[in-house]
């Protein structure tokens, strides 16, 4: 078992630290147990189990650092890895951006670990596959899915006395349902820390419905449309927005957040005032570790408030250069929802497109955060307040900034990929061409 308790992790790290002769030393210990099952063509294709553990030791002399790793934790191995990191440090060039290790910190207690998820068995995974395949087969639909679950821990100790520990569990599930005539495709995604919240049958039924409903899609002209984005689609695009909150690239003048004439967009209104985005490691629906990789405590952080940029992320080095406090990067993304129901969004739409998800999103222009990609697995035309018929997939070229300025309505929040995002209705979303892909 590679999941050590806080006490076990601390004991290993303290033992290893006792061998250190460097000016400074930072040790990271981690381990995970994970399992998966993959199915396609209505049958299981692969199943696997992985167990990993590793200790990384970074020793520093002045501004020269070296890192060595090892996966065995007996005394002899611990001493060996510390000595090796010290040898590597002596051989390394100086790092002008080297920062002394942080002193002891106080962290909130995280809520990322759920025992039930750590106890998932191969039989449970096989049952998930069966619960997905069986209902598909009876509807002349073919299922292809993937379930990946795991438990892990990470712990850190440095020579200035900082100790941090976290353990977490995760389960990720996706399934693509395709009608056997090849004209319809549906998809669903689910992710949780707590496996007991997961219902494979319920999720699979949504994907099957979408597959059946999306058969024989019609081609309509690309152009600017009002879109209703399901949270998975919103997440696909807004997830790309996160990287823009890097203070360093903004200060350096090579980011969307850089301002004309110098400076950054911190404090500027960049999107609709109904947009509020924050991160919070203690949110019960999307919990995350309460400390970042460099040992900084993670707290609730507002990134956009009423459309205004409230914070940029500073690592410790860049914060020291700019004379500000470091702000760790967000571990999750939470966007405030609204009280417009999904039905109301459809009813209030004269002419629009309902999007299940986006696919193959790539950056086109980092200056404007322009991205391209396609709709996939369930795209529908809405007219006069009703979903009329499935439509062929579109390619889009759009920026989340433009999208969040064209906001019409916000709905219920849903967890997608560790983030919490609402249904949203957006006007003038730019579709540039049609795709025949199903």
């Amino acid at each position, binding site marked *: 078992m590679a999941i050590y308790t806080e006490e076990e992790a601390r004991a290993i790290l303290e033992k290893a630290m006792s061998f250190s002769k460097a000016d400074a030393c930072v040790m990271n210990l981690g381990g995970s147990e994970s399992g*998966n099952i*993959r199915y*396609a*063509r*209505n*049958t*299981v*294709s*692969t199943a*696997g189990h*992985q167990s990993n553990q590793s200790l*990384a030791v970074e020793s520093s002399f002045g501004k020269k650092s070296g890192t*060595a790793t*090892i996966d065995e934790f007996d005394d002899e191995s611990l001493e060996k890895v510390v000595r*090796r990191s010290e040898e*590597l440090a002596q*051989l390394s060039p100086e*790092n*002008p*951006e080297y920062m002394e290790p942080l002193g002891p910190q106080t962290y909130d207690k995280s809520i990322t670990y759920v025992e039930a998820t750590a106890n998932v068995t*191969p039989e449970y995974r096989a049952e998930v596959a069966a619960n997905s395949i069986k209902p598909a087969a009876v509807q002349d639909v*073919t299922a*292809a*899915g*993937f379930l*990946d679950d795991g438990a892990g821990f990470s712990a850190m100790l440095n020579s200035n006395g900082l100790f941090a520990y976290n353990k977490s569990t995760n389960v*990720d599930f*996706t399934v*693509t349902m*395709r009608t056997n005539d090849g004209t319809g495709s549906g*998809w669903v995604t689910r992710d949780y820390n707590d496996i007991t919240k997961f219902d494979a049958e319920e999720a699979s039924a949504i994907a099957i419905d979408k597959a059946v409903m999306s058969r024989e899609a019609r081609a309509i002209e690309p152009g600017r449309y009002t879109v209703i984005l399901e949270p998975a689609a919103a997440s696909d695009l807004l997830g790309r927005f996160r*990287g823009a909150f890097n203070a360093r690239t903004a200060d*350096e*003048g*090579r980011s*969307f957040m850089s301002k*004309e004439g*110098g400076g950054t967009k911190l404090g500027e209104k960049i999107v609709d005032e109904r947009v509020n985005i924050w991160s919070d490691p203690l949110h019960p629906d999307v919990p995350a570790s309460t400390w970042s990789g460099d040992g900084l405590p993670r707290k609730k952080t507002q990134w956009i408030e009423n459309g205004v940029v409230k914070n940029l992320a500073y690592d410790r080095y860049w914060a020291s250069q700019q004379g500000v406090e470091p702000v760790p990067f967000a571990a999750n993304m939470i966007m405030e929802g609204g009280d417009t129901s999904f039905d109301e969004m459809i009813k209030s739409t004269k002419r629009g497109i309902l999007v299940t998800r986006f*696919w*193959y*999103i*790539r950056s*086109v*222009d*980092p*200056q*404007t955060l322009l991205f*391209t*990609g396609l709709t*996939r697995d369930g795209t529908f035309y809405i007219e006069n307040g009703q979903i009329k018929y499935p439509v062929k997939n579109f*390619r889009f*070229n759009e920026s989340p*900034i*433009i999208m969040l300025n064209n906001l019409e309505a916000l709905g219920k929040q849903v967890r997608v990929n560790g983030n919490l995002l609402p249904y949203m209705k957006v006007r003038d979303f730019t579709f*540039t*061409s049609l*795709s*025949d*892909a*199903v």
Partner: protein
Amino acid sequence: MKRRNFVQLAGLGAGALMVPSAMMGNNIAAEALLEPGLDIATKKSLADVALNTARSLGASYADARIGRYLNQYVFTREDKVQNVVNTESFGIGVRVIANGTWGFASTNDVTDAGIKKATQQAVSIAKANSKIQTEPVTLAPVEAHGEVSWKTPIVKDFREVPVSEKVELLLDANAAAMNAGANFVNSALFMVNEQKYFASTDGSYIDQDIHRIWPTFGVTAIDREAGKFKSRDALSAPMGMGYEYMDGLESEKLKSPAGFNLYRNSYDIIEDATTAAKQAKEMLTAESVMPGKYDLVLEPNHLGLTIHESVGHPLELDRVLGYEANYAGTSFATLDKWKAGDFKYGSDIVNIVADKTQPHSLGAVGYDDEGVKTKKWDLIRNGTLVNYEAIRDQVSILGQNESHGCCYAQSWNDVQFQRMPNVSLEPGKEPYSVEEMIKDVEKGIYIAGRGSYSIDQQRYNFQFGGTVFYEIKDGKIVGMLNDVAYQSNTQEFWNSCAKICDEKDYRLFGSFFDGKGQPSQVSAVSHGSSTARFNGANVINTGRSV
């Protein structure tokens, strides 16, 4: 791919540079990369433990892969070294067929006991999964090769070149870019050595030593007043070569029609970084493209990615059959189109071959990861779809009895599966230079280097950007363009291929971290071509104001 499958090693360009975690291992000293691995006799006896255990447990087939994967990565920015990483990963993967079903297990405990345990696990997984198996595995026959070996024919082993020399070269390239007016530059060197030993119950014991290298950089120029920035990435290609790729030989340089140099089997990083800085600055004021129809003249280091996405992926047989439906997707190139025998994938001059033996390519090996001797085969001949990319457990579906030899696993820890071989466009048969091609174009755009790329899950609709764009008017290059992307449909695009330059212009493009599968695995693959012309492509303008 999920973010947690990546390790952040350094900031490159505006974003962070992430390396797939499978491309890592235990950190070691650079000198330790040169330590010898196990000798062949020991590897053979260890592999036999797996094969014999599998047989005794009732497996009808087994293979064992003992892998030692060595990586060295160097990262710099401007005048600073950000990171030097040396890693080693060592272990064994055992794959079996029991009750007509695959099973796989791996371990880093490479002892008789460890291997026996992993083999037992593989057999028990196979037997457990066989209960819900509806399609028993059928393997195409393979020749018993006996004890054989293969090595990437390298001139300079990267492991023997001191780290200081590599760091100095990157810092020199950075300095050249800064002197030429860049505001920022990040550069990196990726070097990989796969030492793989394969043994199977079909009678093969294969020892292979594979080398790959990828130098790259991103140069940024900034106009603070206008609040604008532009980046120009390296025009290098990742290659299946040793450190000799960094020699910058004059004989391997080609002049682009826009005046800057392009590189074949030898790369001059200092020269390219200098050009990059000048071009990034020029981009800040270059004209924004007028959207519309243009004839595209696509340079090999650009066209390679288009070949990869619109030919390489759709012809992977596992995609065609639906095994990748939940992730990468399926394919428009369905079996009925192939069976018809007249599916016009491209115009008559389009000949596309798969080749796992091509010198200097990333995909070149002597034998694939299931012991099949590698070869070259046609995918598209005279514009018609003629074959797919398939491995031992798939080719029978095509009515063929010989695997194509393109099975690969990213490490000993992962199960091998069908991966894209090198897929390349044959050069034009008639003598025809890039200069002549430009002369023949009235209204067009010359595109060099890879850029933004996106394609749908069945590989119909795509959009590609590039590294640099030049407008062609009445047979001449008239200036640089910005904000260019072309959108097309795979079949329409390849049928618009009007001309292909001759073999003098032929070069390789490469993709170092191509992802596929769940859990995702990376693979490295090359795509060769000469500069080619595509008529009447739809070009959009990607400029926006926000």
